[in-house]
């Protein structure tokens, strides 16, 4: 059984009208943990509790099985990379990296070797004497990371480290940062609102919405089995339906009122179940096209209400005949299919939903 390296138990924090409520979270040694949530969900407040800048109302924070809830920030031995890196402007790159060595609570052996190693891993040897004003976003991030790691912390906390990086450079830096963290072998706790960043970097993800932790699990489970409608919506799963289970000819059906769907799971009849279907999992079926097994069960005749064209793909909003809704399905398609299928507003099309792509919201 793995032991928790960073553990938060029943944490509550009130900050005026906003509050963090009953947060329970654990992070294992060597894990890259992502705290995911929209702006204003309380991610930074939770990080400030971990760092010791907010005194929690109730709850306990453990690091390496030691209760650090009342410990001052300078004794927590945590590396911190703030959102805008906050490199000290009165010091050069090396001065920034070495800054932690003069702290009263740091007893680092062989600081020169540590600085050399970090500069080598992060590939910032050439920048050592440079003024911090003359660094690019990516370079600033590396220096801030080197400064945080130089004090040999037990864990490194990264607050939206890519928020000030150009969109084009972000993906390369995700890989680079993850590689560096793996090479150093340190436990990382990273907060972000970006789904792609969370999925590509995290081992485990915790989803924080409106001050409450909705789900904390392996990234695959988070994306495949969202624990709540809130998580599903945050993960951009738009086709969310709530229906009553019924049995019909050895198949299980979900009745949504104005339409029904065959589900692959055996659930007692009469139970209310919430499901979602990712927009990219809904198929458009061309007339005369032979349907494979399970696709036949969930075939719907719809009319295109609107089409939203995006740089890499397009979204179709479709409605069932007689539906009281503005639209029933949101479908995401690769751009080239728009012309291939000759799609336009008002066109009547057939949609199929593979049973195995139906996600049950816990």
């Amino acid at each position, binding site marked *: 059984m793995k032991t928790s390296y960073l553990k938060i138990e029943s944490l509550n924090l009130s900050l005026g009208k906003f509050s963090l409520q009953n947060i329970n979270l654990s992070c294992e040694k060597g894990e890259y943990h992502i705290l995911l949530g929209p702006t204003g969900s309380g991610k930074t407040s939770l990080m*400030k509790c971990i*760092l*010791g*800048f907010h005194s929690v109302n109730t709850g306990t924070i453990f690091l390496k099985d030691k209760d650090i809830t009342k410990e*001052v*920030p*300078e004794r*927590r031995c*945590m*590396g*911190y990379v*703030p*959102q*805008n890196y*906050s490199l*000290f*402007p*009165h010091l050069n790159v090396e001065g920034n990296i070495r*800054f*932690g060595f*003069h*702290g*009263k*609570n*740091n007893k680092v052996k062989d600081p020169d070797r540590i600085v050399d190693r970090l500069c080598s891993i992060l590939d910032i040897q050439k920048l050592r004497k440079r003024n911090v004003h003359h660094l690019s976003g990516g370079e600033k991030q590396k220096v801030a990371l080197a*400064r*945080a790691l130089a*004090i040999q912390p037990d864990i490194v906390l990264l607050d939206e480290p890519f928020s000030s990086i150009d969109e084009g450079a972000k993906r390369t830096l995700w890989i680079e940062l993850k590689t560096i963290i793996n090479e150093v072998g340190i436990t990382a706790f990273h907060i972000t609102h970006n789904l792609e960043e969370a999925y590509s970097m995290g081992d485990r993800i915790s989803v924080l919405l409106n001050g409450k932790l909705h789900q904390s699990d392996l990234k695959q489970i988070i994306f495949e089995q969202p624990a709540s409608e809130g998580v599903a919506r945050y993960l951009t799963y738009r086709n969310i339906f709530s229906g009553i289970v019924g049995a019909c000819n050895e198949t299980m059906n979900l009745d949504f009122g104005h339409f029904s769907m065959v589900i692959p799971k055996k659930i007692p009849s009469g139970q209310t179940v919430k499901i979602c279907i990712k927009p990219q999992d809904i198929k458009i079926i061309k007339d005369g096209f032979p349907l494979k097994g399970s696709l036949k069960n969930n075939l719907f005749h719809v009319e295109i209400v609107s089409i939203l064209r995006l740089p890499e793909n397009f979204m179709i909003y479709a409605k069932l005949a007689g539906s009281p809704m503005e639209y029933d399905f949101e479908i995401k398609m690769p751009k080239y299919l728009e012309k291939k299928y000759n799609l336009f507003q008002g066109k009547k099309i057939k949609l199929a939903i593979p049973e195995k792509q139906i996600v049950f919201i816990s």
Partner: protein
Amino acid sequence: MNRTFDTLMWGATVLLIFVFISLFGSMIIELAGTNALSFPHFDRIWFAIKLSLLTATISSVVAILSSVPVAYLFSRQSFFGKAFIDTLLDLPIVLSPIALGAMLLIFFNTAVGKQIEHHFGAIVFEVKGIVVAQFFVIVGLSIRLLRTTFEGIDPEYENLARTLGYNKIQTFQKVVIPMAGRGLMGSFLLVWGRAIGEFGATVTLAGATTMKTETIPTAIYLSFESADITGALIYITILVVMSLAILFFVRSVQGGKL
């Protein structure tokens, strides 16, 4: 319409510059008409300059040192009654210096004031009185300027230093003070300039005794009172030159040239 707006703005600016130049110009023309170099009281001028520099430096150093903790506290903390105390500390900025001087004079006539004089020596109508008067006139400005400086430093730098093992005192020494350096220097020069030109509170508390409590502004007042226009013009010129030098220096500091 845009042209009229631009003309209005430029017109007002040129008019104001003209008024200022006229002011300085008339003084220089007047000074050129007198025989300033044969002015017999150069020892008196030298005394006023030395006294002004000494008292302004002491009062400014004390004001800045006492303002640093107050300004830092106000820039970082929220507490009950903050708005009220803030208004109270701003009072010396807007209060007439003569009223402030009169308040100080009344204070030093109370039992507490007399005890202070008993322990620290005479203040009223003495050189120490100049320092005290200047201090009270400039301390509000000093707090205001330093608060703006500290508010300009993102508290995230301090948080970061704490995570790197620095306690609050170390963080203040190693992060806040170096980052506020330029603002501290600029604030010091501005309050020093204000102290050099202080007259109302000084003359009320320390009096206007020749070669004793005679700062440059007091010397201007005494020269006019004795109809010594040449003397007054010399003192005014010295004060204008000193004030201009300070302002240029402040601009250089704030512009990062120093």
